[in-house]
Protein backbone atom coordinates (compact mmCIF):
# COMPACT_ATOMS: atom_id res chain seq x y z
CA UNK A 1 0.00 0.00 0.00
CA UNK A 2 1.71 3.24 -1.06
CA UNK A 3 1.45 6.36 0.97
CA UNK A 4 -0.01 9.49 -0.68
CA UNK A 5 2.69 12.02 -1.54
CA UNK A 6 3.38 14.43 1.30
CA UNK A 7 1.60 17.79 1.12
CA UNK A 8 4.04 20.47 0.08
CA UNK A 9 3.84 23.19 2.72
CA UNK A 10 5.74 25.61 0.50
CA UNK A 11 3.39 25.44 -2.48
CA UNK A 12 2.64 28.97 -3.45
CA UNK A 13 -0.08 30.35 -5.61
CA UNK A 14 0.79 31.63 -9.05
CA UNK A 15 -1.57 34.52 -8.66
CA UNK A 16 0.77 37.33 -7.51
CA UNK A 17 3.07 36.57 -10.42
CA UNK A 18 0.21 36.65 -12.90
CA UNK A 19 -1.25 39.85 -11.50
CA UNK A 20 2.12 41.55 -11.58
CA UNK A 21 2.65 40.45 -15.17
CA UNK A 22 -0.75 41.76 -16.19
CA UNK A 23 -0.11 45.07 -14.46
CA UNK A 24 3.15 45.49 -16.34
CA UNK A 25 1.49 44.60 -19.64
CA UNK A 26 -1.34 47.02 -18.94
CA UNK A 27 1.10 49.84 -18.28
CA UNK A 28 2.88 49.14 -21.56
CA UNK A 29 -0.40 49.01 -23.47
CA UNK A 30 -1.32 52.35 -21.91
CA UNK A 31 1.47 53.97 -23.90
CA UNK A 32 0.10 52.60 -27.15
CA UNK A 33 -3.39 53.55 -26.08
CA UNK A 34 -2.21 57.07 -25.39
CA UNK A 35 -0.94 57.55 -28.93
CA UNK A 36 -4.14 56.19 -30.43
CA UNK A 37 -6.18 58.25 -27.99
CA UNK A 38 -4.39 61.44 -28.97
CA UNK A 39 -4.96 60.77 -32.68
CA UNK A 40 -8.61 59.89 -32.20
CA UNK A 41 -9.43 62.82 -29.94
CA UNK A 42 -7.67 65.26 -32.25
CA UNK A 43 -9.55 63.98 -35.28
CA UNK A 44 -12.86 64.12 -33.44
CA UNK A 45 -12.19 67.61 -32.16
CA UNK A 46 -11.11 68.85 -35.56
CA UNK A 47 -13.94 67.18 -37.44
CA UNK A 48 -16.09 70.31 -38.01
CA UNK A 49 -13.13 72.00 -39.64
CA UNK A 50 -12.03 68.93 -41.56
CA UNK A 51 -15.46 68.35 -42.99
CA UNK A 52 -15.85 71.99 -43.95
CA UNK A 53 -12.43 72.71 -45.43
CA UNK A 54 -10.81 69.40 -46.18
CA UNK A 55 -7.24 69.70 -47.34
CA UNK A 56 -7.82 73.22 -48.62
CA UNK A 57 -7.30 74.32 -45.03
CA UNK A 58 -3.61 73.83 -45.54
CA UNK A 59 -3.33 76.34 -48.37
CA UNK A 60 -5.71 79.08 -47.31
CA UNK A 61 -4.23 82.03 -45.47
CA UNK A 62 -7.44 83.56 -44.21
CA UNK A 63 -7.83 83.57 -40.43
CA UNK A 64 -10.88 85.53 -39.45
CA UNK A 65 -12.65 84.64 -36.19
CA UNK A 66 -15.20 87.36 -36.79
CA UNK A 67 -16.35 86.04 -40.15
CA UNK A 68 -15.72 82.45 -39.03
CA UNK A 69 -13.37 81.70 -41.92
CA UNK A 70 -10.16 79.82 -41.20
CA UNK A 71 -7.15 78.59 -43.09
CA UNK A 72 -3.90 77.26 -41.72
CA UNK A 73 -1.29 78.49 -44.21
CA UNK A 74 0.04 81.35 -42.05
CA UNK A 75 0.71 79.11 -39.08
CA UNK A 76 2.12 76.25 -41.12
CA UNK A 77 4.46 78.66 -42.91
CA UNK A 78 5.53 80.16 -39.60
CA UNK A 79 6.27 76.76 -38.09
CA UNK A 80 8.22 75.56 -41.13
CA UNK A 81 10.13 78.81 -41.65
CA UNK A 82 11.26 79.15 -38.03
CA UNK A 83 12.27 75.49 -37.88
CA UNK A 84 14.20 75.82 -41.15
CA UNK A 85 16.14 78.83 -39.88
CA UNK A 86 16.76 77.01 -36.61
CA UNK A 87 18.21 73.99 -38.43
CA UNK A 88 20.32 76.22 -40.68
CA UNK A 89 22.03 77.68 -37.64
CA UNK A 90 21.98 74.69 -35.31
CA UNK A 91 23.37 71.94 -37.56
CA UNK A 92 26.82 73.45 -38.27
CA UNK A 93 27.17 74.64 -34.68
CA UNK A 94 26.20 71.24 -33.27
CA UNK A 95 28.60 69.55 -35.64
CA UNK A 96 31.37 71.85 -34.42
CA UNK A 97 30.51 71.13 -30.80
CA UNK A 98 30.40 67.37 -31.36
CA UNK A 99 33.71 67.54 -33.23
CA UNK A 100 35.26 69.51 -30.37
CA UNK A 101 33.98 67.15 -27.70
CA UNK A 102 35.14 63.99 -29.45
CA UNK A 103 38.43 64.97 -31.09
CA UNK A 104 39.79 68.17 -29.67
CA UNK A 105 39.02 68.60 -26.04
CA UNK A 106 41.36 67.28 -23.35
CA UNK A 107 39.92 64.39 -21.35
CA UNK A 108 39.41 66.35 -18.15
CA UNK A 109 37.34 68.97 -20.00
CA UNK A 110 35.00 66.56 -21.79
CA UNK A 111 32.61 65.87 -18.91
CA UNK A 112 32.08 69.46 -17.71
CA UNK A 113 31.65 70.78 -21.24
CA UNK A 114 29.27 67.98 -22.13
CA UNK A 115 27.27 68.71 -18.97
CA UNK A 116 27.20 72.43 -19.77
CA UNK A 117 25.77 71.76 -23.22
CA UNK A 118 23.19 69.41 -21.76
CA UNK A 119 22.19 72.05 -19.22
CA UNK A 120 21.27 74.20 -22.19
CA UNK A 121 18.67 71.55 -22.98
CA UNK A 122 17.38 71.49 -19.42
CA UNK A 123 16.53 75.20 -19.30
CA UNK A 124 12.73 75.45 -19.55
CA UNK A 125 11.43 76.96 -22.75
CA UNK A 126 9.59 79.71 -20.94
CA UNK A 127 12.95 81.04 -19.76
CA UNK A 128 14.11 81.15 -23.37
CA UNK A 129 10.92 82.92 -24.32
CA UNK A 130 11.17 85.62 -21.71
CA UNK A 131 14.87 86.14 -22.26
CA UNK A 132 14.26 86.25 -25.99
CA UNK A 133 11.54 88.85 -25.74
CA UNK A 134 13.02 91.15 -23.13
CA UNK A 135 16.78 90.78 -23.53
CA UNK A 136 17.67 89.28 -26.90
CA UNK A 137 15.00 90.97 -29.02
CA UNK A 138 16.07 94.57 -28.39
CA UNK A 139 19.72 93.66 -28.93
CA UNK A 140 18.90 91.83 -32.15
CA UNK A 141 16.95 94.86 -33.30
CA UNK A 142 19.71 97.36 -32.67
CA UNK A 143 22.78 95.41 -33.67
CA UNK A 144 21.56 93.03 -36.34
CA UNK A 145 18.24 93.94 -37.87
CA UNK A 146 18.68 97.67 -38.32
CA UNK A 147 22.15 97.41 -39.87
CA UNK A 148 20.98 94.57 -42.12
CA UNK A 149 18.02 96.63 -43.22
CA UNK A 150 20.07 99.70 -44.03
CA UNK A 151 22.61 97.57 -45.91
CA UNK A 152 20.35 95.37 -47.98
CA UNK A 153 17.09 97.18 -48.45
CA UNK A 154 18.02 98.13 -52.03
CA UNK A 155 19.17 94.67 -53.11
CA UNK A 156 16.38 92.97 -55.16
CA UNK A 157 15.70 89.66 -53.39
CA UNK A 158 17.55 90.17 -50.11
CA UNK A 159 15.73 93.43 -49.67
CA UNK A 160 12.42 91.63 -49.48
CA UNK A 161 13.83 89.36 -46.78
CA UNK A 162 14.94 92.22 -44.57
CA UNK A 163 12.01 94.56 -45.02
CA UNK A 164 9.56 94.78 -42.18
CA UNK A 165 9.77 96.41 -38.76
CA UNK A 166 13.16 95.78 -37.15
CA UNK A 167 11.91 95.53 -33.59
CA UNK A 168 13.37 92.21 -32.58
CA UNK A 169 10.37 89.97 -32.98
CA UNK A 170 9.36 87.87 -35.93
CA UNK A 171 10.49 84.82 -37.80
CA UNK A 172 14.21 85.56 -37.55
CA UNK A 173 14.15 86.03 -33.78
CA UNK A 174 12.08 82.92 -33.27
CA UNK A 175 14.38 80.97 -35.58
CA UNK A 176 17.52 82.03 -33.74
CA UNK A 177 16.09 81.21 -30.32
CA UNK A 178 14.85 77.84 -31.58
CA UNK A 179 18.36 77.17 -32.92
CA UNK A 180 19.86 77.74 -29.47
CA UNK A 181 17.26 75.41 -27.99
CA UNK A 182 17.87 72.50 -30.36
CA UNK A 183 21.69 72.74 -30.45
CA UNK A 184 22.12 70.55 -27.33
CA UNK A 185 19.86 67.80 -28.71
CA UNK A 186 21.58 67.58 -32.06
CA UNK A 187 25.04 67.97 -30.51
CA UNK A 188 24.60 65.17 -27.99
CA UNK A 189 23.25 62.73 -30.60
CA UNK A 190 26.14 63.62 -32.92
CA UNK A 191 28.63 63.21 -30.10
CA UNK A 192 27.23 59.81 -29.10
CA UNK A 193 27.25 58.72 -32.70
CA UNK A 194 30.83 59.94 -33.32
CA UNK A 195 32.01 58.04 -30.28
CA UNK A 196 30.58 54.81 -31.67
CA UNK A 197 32.93 54.88 -34.66
CA UNK A 198 35.40 52.02 -34.32
CA UNK A 199 38.70 53.34 -33.07
CA UNK A 200 40.49 51.02 -35.48
CA UNK A 201 39.02 52.83 -38.49
CA UNK A 202 40.14 56.19 -37.19
CA UNK A 203 43.58 54.99 -36.21
CA UNK A 204 44.11 53.41 -39.63
CA UNK A 205 43.39 56.79 -41.19
CA UNK A 206 45.71 58.57 -38.76
CA UNK A 207 48.32 55.96 -39.50
CA UNK A 208 48.14 56.82 -43.20
CA UNK A 209 48.89 60.46 -42.36
CA UNK A 210 45.42 62.00 -42.39
CA UNK A 211 44.82 65.21 -40.46
CA UNK A 212 42.16 65.31 -37.75
CA UNK A 213 39.72 67.10 -40.01
CA UNK A 214 40.29 64.57 -42.78
CA UNK A 215 39.60 61.69 -40.40
CA UNK A 216 36.33 63.28 -39.32
CA UNK A 217 35.23 64.34 -42.76
CA UNK A 218 36.24 61.22 -44.67
CA UNK A 219 36.00 58.42 -42.13
CA UNK A 220 33.77 59.28 -39.16
CA UNK A 221 31.09 61.24 -41.01
CA UNK A 222 30.46 58.65 -43.75
CA UNK A 223 30.34 55.90 -41.15
CA UNK A 224 27.83 57.77 -38.98
CA UNK A 225 25.78 59.30 -41.81
CA UNK A 226 22.52 57.70 -40.69
CA UNK A 227 23.05 58.69 -37.07
CA UNK A 228 23.83 62.29 -37.96
CA UNK A 229 20.69 62.51 -40.06
CA UNK A 230 18.74 60.94 -37.21
CA UNK A 231 20.04 63.55 -34.81
CA UNK A 232 19.12 66.36 -37.18
CA UNK A 233 15.62 64.95 -37.56
CA UNK A 234 15.32 64.79 -33.78
CA UNK A 235 16.28 68.44 -33.53
CA UNK A 236 13.78 69.29 -36.25
CA UNK A 237 11.05 67.42 -34.39
CA UNK A 238 11.79 69.40 -31.24
CA UNK A 239 11.86 72.69 -33.11
CA UNK A 240 8.53 72.03 -34.79
CA UNK A 241 6.79 71.37 -31.48
CA UNK A 242 8.34 74.12 -29.39
CA UNK A 243 5.69 76.38 -27.95
CA UNK A 244 6.66 78.95 -25.34
CA UNK A 245 9.91 80.27 -26.78
CA UNK A 246 8.26 80.82 -30.15
CA UNK A 247 5.07 82.32 -28.70
CA UNK A 248 6.95 85.07 -26.91
CA UNK A 249 8.90 86.34 -29.89
CA UNK A 250 6.97 85.51 -33.01
CA UNK A 251 4.56 88.39 -32.74
CA UNK A 252 1.18 86.67 -33.01
CA UNK A 253 0.27 88.16 -36.36
CA UNK A 254 -2.21 86.18 -38.43
CA UNK A 255 -1.44 87.48 -41.87
CA UNK A 256 1.06 86.50 -44.50
CA UNK A 257 1.83 89.73 -46.31
CA UNK A 258 5.49 89.43 -47.11
CA UNK A 259 8.39 87.08 -47.11
CA UNK A 260 10.29 89.29 -44.72
CA UNK A 261 12.16 87.59 -41.94
CA UNK A 262 11.60 90.55 -39.68
CA UNK A 263 7.85 90.44 -40.03
CA UNK A 264 5.76 89.22 -37.16
CA UNK A 265 4.07 85.95 -37.92
CA UNK A 266 2.44 83.03 -36.23
CA UNK A 267 3.27 79.38 -35.79
CA UNK A 268 0.94 76.49 -35.09
CA UNK A 269 2.07 76.24 -31.48
CA UNK A 270 1.87 79.95 -30.79
CA UNK A 271 -1.57 80.19 -32.39
CA UNK A 272 -2.73 77.41 -30.10
CA UNK A 273 -1.12 78.96 -27.05
CA UNK A 274 -2.59 82.38 -27.68
CA UNK A 275 -6.05 81.60 -28.97
CA UNK A 276 -7.20 78.23 -27.73
CA UNK A 277 -8.16 79.04 -24.17
CA UNK A 278 -10.68 81.62 -25.33
CA UNK A 279 -11.76 80.10 -28.61
CA UNK A 280 -15.49 79.62 -28.77
CA UNK A 281 -16.78 76.11 -29.24
CA UNK A 282 -17.35 75.56 -32.88
CA UNK A 283 -15.40 76.32 -36.00
CA UNK A 284 -12.70 78.43 -34.30
CA UNK A 285 -11.85 75.71 -31.81
CA UNK A 286 -12.13 72.99 -34.43
CA UNK A 287 -9.77 74.85 -36.75
CA UNK A 288 -7.24 75.22 -33.98
CA UNK A 289 -7.48 71.51 -33.21
CA UNK A 290 -7.08 70.81 -36.94
CA UNK A 291 -3.82 72.78 -36.78
CA UNK A 292 -2.78 70.70 -33.76
CA UNK A 293 -3.53 67.55 -35.74
CA UNK A 294 -1.38 68.77 -38.64
CA UNK A 295 1.46 69.54 -36.24
CA UNK A 296 1.17 66.16 -34.55
CA UNK A 297 1.22 64.44 -37.91
CA UNK A 298 4.32 66.34 -39.08
CA UNK A 299 6.24 65.72 -35.85
CA UNK A 300 5.18 62.07 -35.85
CA UNK A 301 6.64 61.58 -39.33
CA UNK A 302 9.84 63.49 -38.52
CA UNK A 303 10.42 61.68 -35.23
CA UNK A 304 9.69 58.27 -36.80
CA UNK A 305 12.26 59.00 -39.49
CA UNK A 306 14.72 59.98 -36.79
CA UNK A 307 14.19 56.74 -34.90
CA UNK A 308 14.53 54.64 -38.04
CA UNK A 309 17.78 56.38 -39.02
CA UNK A 310 19.27 56.02 -35.56
CA UNK A 311 18.37 52.35 -35.32
CA UNK A 312 19.84 51.78 -38.76
CA UNK A 313 23.14 53.03 -37.41
CA UNK A 314 22.94 50.58 -34.54
CA UNK A 315 22.37 47.75 -36.98
CA UNK A 316 25.39 48.74 -39.04
CA UNK A 317 27.74 48.79 -36.09
CA UNK A 318 30.60 46.47 -36.97
CA UNK A 319 29.27 45.78 -40.44
CA UNK A 320 31.38 46.23 -43.50
CA UNK A 321 30.75 49.53 -45.29
Amino acid at each position, binding site marked *: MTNPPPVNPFKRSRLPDRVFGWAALAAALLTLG*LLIGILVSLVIGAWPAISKYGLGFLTSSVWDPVQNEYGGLVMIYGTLATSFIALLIAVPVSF*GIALFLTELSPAWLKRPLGTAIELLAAVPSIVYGMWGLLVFGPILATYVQQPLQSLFSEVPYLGALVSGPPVGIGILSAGIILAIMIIPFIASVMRDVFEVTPVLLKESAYGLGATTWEVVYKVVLPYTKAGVMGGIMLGLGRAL*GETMAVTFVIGNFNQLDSLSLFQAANSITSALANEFAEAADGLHQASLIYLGLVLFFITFVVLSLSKLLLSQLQKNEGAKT
Partner: protein
Amino acid sequence: MSAVLHDARLAKFNQRKRVNRLALLLSLAAMAFGLFWLFWILWETVRLGIGGISVATFTQMTPAPNEEGGIANAIYGSFLMVMLSTFIGTPIGIMAGIYLAEYNTKGWLASLTRFVNDILLSAPSIVIGLFVYAVVVSRFHSFSGWAGVMALALIVIPVVIRTTENMLQLVPPGLREAAYALGAPKWKVITRITLRAARSGVVTGVLLAVARIAGETAPLLFTALNNQFWTSNLGQPMASLPVTIFKFAMSPYENWQQLAWAGVFIITVAVLGLNILARVLTRKKD
Protein backbone atom coordinates in the same frame (compact mmCIF):
# COMPACT_ATOMS: atom_id res chain seq x y z
CA MET B 1 62.34 66.56 -61.13
CA SER B 2 62.32 65.56 -57.53
CA ALA B 3 62.61 69.16 -56.31
CA VAL B 4 59.46 70.15 -58.22
CA LEU B 5 57.61 67.10 -56.98
CA HIS B 6 58.81 67.77 -53.47
CA ASP B 7 57.60 71.39 -53.66
CA ALA B 8 54.22 70.32 -54.99
CA ARG B 9 53.86 67.76 -52.25
CA LEU B 10 54.88 70.29 -49.60
CA ALA B 11 52.37 72.83 -50.90
CA LYS B 12 49.60 70.25 -50.81
CA PHE B 13 50.57 69.20 -47.32
CA ASN B 14 50.55 72.80 -46.11
CA GLN B 15 47.14 73.32 -47.62
CA ARG B 16 45.83 70.26 -45.82
CA LYS B 17 47.35 71.56 -42.60
CA ARG B 18 45.67 74.92 -43.11
CA VAL B 19 42.29 73.36 -43.76
CA ASN B 20 42.72 71.24 -40.65
CA ARG B 21 43.59 74.21 -38.50
CA LEU B 22 40.64 76.18 -39.84
CA ALA B 23 38.23 73.33 -39.15
CA LEU B 24 39.48 72.89 -35.60
CA LEU B 25 39.31 76.61 -34.96
CA LEU B 26 35.73 76.69 -36.21
CA SER B 27 34.79 73.82 -33.94
CA LEU B 28 36.31 75.65 -30.99
CA ALA B 29 34.29 78.70 -32.03
CA ALA B 30 31.14 76.58 -32.16
CA MET B 31 31.78 75.31 -28.64
CA ALA B 32 32.35 78.85 -27.41
CA PHE B 33 29.20 79.95 -29.24
CA GLY B 34 27.11 77.33 -27.44
CA LEU B 35 28.58 78.14 -24.05
CA PHE B 36 28.13 81.86 -24.65
CA TRP B 37 24.35 81.51 -24.97
CA LEU B 38 24.14 79.34 -21.86
CA PHE B 39 26.07 81.76 -19.73
CA TRP B 40 24.28 84.83 -21.11
CA ILE B 41 20.83 83.36 -20.48
CA LEU B 42 21.74 82.23 -16.96
CA TRP B 43 23.39 85.55 -16.19
CA GLU B 44 20.39 87.58 -17.33
CA THR B 45 18.01 85.32 -15.42
CA VAL B 46 19.97 85.83 -12.21
CA ARG B 47 20.50 89.53 -12.77
CA LEU B 48 16.91 90.36 -13.60
CA GLY B 49 15.27 87.81 -11.37
CA ILE B 50 17.07 88.16 -8.11
CA GLY B 51 15.90 91.73 -7.69
CA GLY B 52 12.33 90.52 -7.51
CA ILE B 53 12.93 87.92 -4.84
CA SER B 54 11.78 88.99 -1.41
CA VAL B 55 9.68 87.57 1.39
CA ALA B 56 6.64 89.09 -0.27
CA THR B 57 7.27 87.05 -3.43
CA PHE B 58 6.78 83.86 -1.51
CA THR B 59 3.95 84.92 0.74
CA GLN B 60 1.61 87.13 -1.20
CA MET B 61 -0.84 86.33 -3.96
CA THR B 62 -0.66 87.46 -7.55
CA PRO B 63 -1.63 91.11 -7.58
CA ALA B 64 -3.59 93.32 -9.91
CA PRO B 65 -1.45 95.43 -12.24
CA ASN B 66 0.67 98.01 -10.46
CA GLU B 67 -0.02 96.71 -7.00
CA GLU B 68 2.17 94.99 -4.47
CA GLY B 69 2.09 91.27 -4.42
CA GLY B 70 3.87 88.00 -4.86
CA ILE B 71 3.48 84.68 -6.63
CA ALA B 72 2.75 82.44 -3.68
CA ASN B 73 -0.36 80.91 -5.20
CA ALA B 74 1.50 80.16 -8.41
CA ILE B 75 4.36 78.49 -6.55
CA TYR B 76 1.96 76.43 -4.47
CA GLY B 77 -0.11 75.46 -7.50
CA SER B 78 2.96 74.36 -9.45
CA PHE B 79 4.28 72.44 -6.47
CA LEU B 80 0.99 70.65 -5.93
CA MET B 81 0.45 69.73 -9.57
CA VAL B 82 4.05 68.60 -10.10
CA MET B 83 3.98 66.41 -6.98
CA LEU B 84 0.65 64.81 -7.85
CA SER B 85 1.51 64.13 -11.46
CA THR B 86 4.82 62.58 -10.42
CA PHE B 87 3.01 60.32 -7.93
CA ILE B 88 0.57 59.24 -10.61
CA GLY B 89 2.95 58.95 -13.54
CA THR B 90 5.93 57.29 -11.88
CA PRO B 91 4.33 53.94 -10.93
CA ILE B 92 2.80 53.56 -14.39
CA GLY B 93 6.12 54.44 -16.01
CA ILE B 94 8.08 52.04 -13.81
CA MET B 95 5.64 49.18 -14.47
CA ALA B 96 5.84 49.77 -18.22
CA GLY B 97 9.63 49.96 -18.01
CA ILE B 98 9.61 46.68 -16.09
CA TYR B 99 7.50 45.13 -18.84
CA LEU B 100 9.93 46.28 -21.51
CA ALA B 101 13.02 45.14 -19.66
CA GLU B 102 11.90 41.98 -17.90
CA TYR B 103 8.91 40.46 -19.55
CA ASN B 104 9.03 40.76 -23.27
CA THR B 105 12.30 42.35 -24.24
CA LYS B 106 12.40 41.28 -27.87
CA GLY B 107 8.79 40.78 -28.88
CA TRP B 108 6.97 42.90 -31.44
CA LEU B 109 4.80 44.49 -28.75
CA ALA B 110 7.91 45.62 -26.88
CA SER B 111 9.50 47.10 -30.00
CA LEU B 112 6.28 48.89 -30.88
CA THR B 113 5.95 50.24 -27.34
CA ARG B 114 9.51 51.50 -27.34
CA PHE B 115 8.97 53.20 -30.70
CA VAL B 116 5.75 54.88 -29.60
CA ASN B 117 7.28 55.84 -26.28
CA ASP B 118 10.20 57.60 -27.90
CA ILE B 119 7.84 59.53 -30.13
CA LEU B 120 5.72 60.59 -27.18
CA LEU B 121 8.90 61.63 -25.41
CA SER B 122 9.68 64.25 -28.03
CA ALA B 123 6.15 65.07 -29.12
CA PRO B 124 4.91 68.66 -28.77
CA SER B 125 3.61 69.07 -25.24
CA ILE B 126 0.87 71.38 -26.44
CA VAL B 127 -0.70 68.45 -28.25
CA ILE B 128 -0.87 66.59 -24.92
CA GLY B 129 -2.67 69.63 -23.56
CA LEU B 130 -5.15 69.46 -26.44
CA PHE B 131 -5.76 65.79 -25.76
CA VAL B 132 -6.45 66.34 -22.06
CA TYR B 133 -8.67 69.29 -22.96
CA ALA B 134 -10.72 67.13 -25.29
CA VAL B 135 -11.00 64.27 -22.83
CA VAL B 136 -11.33 66.01 -19.46
CA VAL B 137 -12.05 69.70 -19.74
CA SER B 138 -14.73 69.63 -22.38
CA ARG B 139 -16.35 66.61 -20.72
CA PHE B 140 -16.65 68.36 -17.38
CA HIS B 141 -17.05 71.85 -18.83
CA SER B 142 -14.47 73.39 -16.57
CA PHE B 143 -10.76 73.89 -16.37
CA SER B 144 -9.32 72.25 -13.29
CA GLY B 145 -6.18 71.39 -11.45
CA TRP B 146 -6.89 67.70 -12.06
CA ALA B 147 -6.75 68.23 -15.82
CA GLY B 148 -3.39 69.90 -15.36
CA VAL B 149 -2.19 67.01 -13.22
CA MET B 150 -3.26 64.53 -15.89
CA ALA B 151 -1.50 66.46 -18.66
CA LEU B 152 1.74 66.60 -16.67
CA ALA B 153 1.48 62.91 -15.74
CA LEU B 154 1.23 62.06 -19.45
CA ILE B 155 4.57 63.82 -19.91
CA VAL B 156 6.17 62.09 -16.92
CA ILE B 157 5.28 58.58 -18.11
CA PRO B 158 7.46 58.38 -21.27
CA VAL B 159 10.48 59.87 -19.47
CA VAL B 160 10.21 57.37 -16.61
CA ILE B 161 9.65 54.44 -18.99
CA ARG B 162 12.81 55.29 -20.92
CA THR B 163 15.07 55.69 -17.92
CA THR B 164 13.63 52.71 -16.00
CA GLU B 165 14.10 50.39 -18.96
CA ASN B 166 17.68 51.57 -19.51
CA MET B 167 18.56 51.21 -15.84
CA LEU B 168 16.98 47.76 -15.49
CA GLN B 169 18.89 46.54 -18.54
CA LEU B 170 22.13 47.49 -16.83
CA VAL B 171 21.53 45.09 -13.93
CA PRO B 172 23.79 42.05 -14.42
CA PRO B 173 21.79 38.95 -15.42
CA GLY B 174 23.73 36.87 -12.93
CA LEU B 175 21.97 38.70 -10.13
CA ARG B 176 18.57 37.73 -11.48
CA GLU B 177 19.60 34.16 -12.14
CA ALA B 178 20.91 33.75 -8.60
CA ALA B 179 17.55 34.88 -7.24
CA TYR B 180 15.63 32.54 -9.53
CA ALA B 181 17.93 29.69 -8.52
CA LEU B 182 16.99 30.29 -4.91
CA GLY B 183 13.34 29.79 -5.84
CA ALA B 184 12.04 33.35 -5.82
CA PRO B 185 8.96 34.05 -7.96
CA LYS B 186 9.37 36.47 -10.83
CA TRP B 187 7.63 39.41 -9.24
CA LYS B 188 9.81 39.14 -6.16
CA VAL B 189 12.96 38.95 -8.24
CA ILE B 190 11.92 42.11 -10.04
CA THR B 191 10.82 44.17 -7.08
CA ARG B 192 13.20 43.00 -4.39
CA ILE B 193 16.35 42.37 -6.41
CA THR B 194 16.46 43.98 -9.85
CA LEU B 195 14.60 47.17 -9.06
CA ARG B 196 16.52 47.60 -5.86
CA ALA B 197 19.81 47.23 -7.73
CA ALA B 198 18.73 49.83 -10.28
CA ARG B 199 17.23 52.06 -7.60
CA SER B 200 19.47 55.08 -7.95
CA GLY B 201 19.12 55.09 -11.73
CA VAL B 202 15.36 54.97 -11.50
CA VAL B 203 15.35 57.77 -8.94
CA THR B 204 17.51 59.81 -11.30
CA GLY B 205 14.95 59.24 -14.03
CA VAL B 206 12.16 60.46 -11.78
CA LEU B 207 14.18 63.56 -10.85
CA LEU B 208 14.73 64.33 -14.53
CA ALA B 209 11.01 63.91 -15.18
CA VAL B 210 10.19 66.30 -12.34
CA ALA B 211 12.68 68.81 -13.72
CA ARG B 212 11.01 68.55 -17.10
CA ILE B 213 7.44 69.09 -15.96
CA ALA B 214 8.39 71.83 -13.52
CA GLY B 215 9.12 74.06 -16.48
CA GLU B 216 6.32 72.97 -18.80
CA THR B 217 3.85 75.65 -19.72
CA ALA B 218 2.00 74.52 -22.82
CA PRO B 219 0.14 71.55 -21.34
CA LEU B 220 -1.20 73.72 -18.53
CA LEU B 221 -2.44 76.54 -20.74
CA PHE B 222 -5.82 75.07 -21.40
CA THR B 223 -6.14 72.44 -18.74
CA ALA B 224 -5.45 74.11 -15.41
CA LEU B 225 -5.71 77.59 -16.90
CA ASN B 226 -4.83 80.13 -14.25
CA ASN B 227 -6.16 81.54 -11.02
CA GLN B 228 -5.55 84.89 -9.38
CA PHE B 229 -6.24 83.65 -5.90
CA TRP B 230 -5.02 80.97 -3.58
CA THR B 231 -6.73 77.65 -3.99
CA SER B 232 -6.01 74.11 -2.86
CA ASN B 233 -9.07 72.81 -4.64
CA LEU B 234 -7.92 70.81 -7.63
CA GLY B 235 -11.39 70.89 -9.10
CA GLN B 236 -10.91 74.54 -9.91
CA PRO B 237 -8.55 76.30 -12.26
CA MET B 238 -5.21 76.50 -10.58
CA ALA B 239 -2.39 78.97 -10.80
CA SER B 240 0.96 77.62 -11.83
CA LEU B 241 4.31 79.28 -12.06
CA PRO B 242 4.90 78.89 -15.80
CA VAL B 243 1.44 80.06 -16.85
CA THR B 244 1.61 83.02 -14.46
CA ILE B 245 4.98 83.97 -15.91
CA PHE B 246 3.49 83.76 -19.40
CA LYS B 247 0.65 86.05 -18.52
CA PHE B 248 2.81 88.55 -16.62
CA ALA B 249 5.70 88.68 -19.04
CA MET B 250 3.58 89.54 -22.06
CA SER B 251 1.97 92.44 -20.20
CA PRO B 252 3.13 96.05 -20.16
CA TYR B 253 3.02 96.43 -16.37
CA GLU B 254 6.27 96.96 -14.54
CA ASN B 255 5.45 95.05 -11.37
CA TRP B 256 4.07 92.10 -13.30
CA GLN B 257 7.22 91.86 -15.38
CA GLN B 258 9.36 92.01 -12.25
CA LEU B 259 7.35 89.16 -10.71
CA ALA B 260 7.68 87.21 -13.96
CA TRP B 261 11.47 87.50 -13.80
CA ALA B 262 11.41 86.38 -10.18
CA GLY B 263 9.32 83.38 -11.22
CA VAL B 264 11.73 82.58 -14.05
CA PHE B 265 14.60 82.73 -11.58
CA ILE B 266 12.85 80.33 -9.21
CA ILE B 267 12.02 77.86 -11.98
CA THR B 268 15.55 77.95 -13.41
CA VAL B 269 17.13 77.37 -10.01
CA ALA B 270 14.78 74.47 -9.30
CA VAL B 271 15.18 72.82 -12.72
CA LEU B 272 18.96 73.20 -12.94
CA GLY B 273 19.31 72.11 -9.32
CA LEU B 274 17.33 68.93 -10.00
CA ASN B 275 19.38 68.21 -13.13
CA ILE B 276 22.69 68.66 -11.35
CA LEU B 277 21.43 66.53 -8.44
CA ALA B 278 20.44 63.78 -10.88
CA ARG B 279 23.88 63.91 -12.50
CA VAL B 280 25.66 63.77 -9.16
CA LEU B 281 23.60 60.71 -8.16
CA THR B 282 24.47 58.93 -11.42
CA ARG B 283 28.13 59.64 -11.00
CA LYS B 284 28.19 58.39 -7.41
CA LYS B 285 26.82 55.08 -8.58
CA ASP B 286 29.80 54.61 -10.88
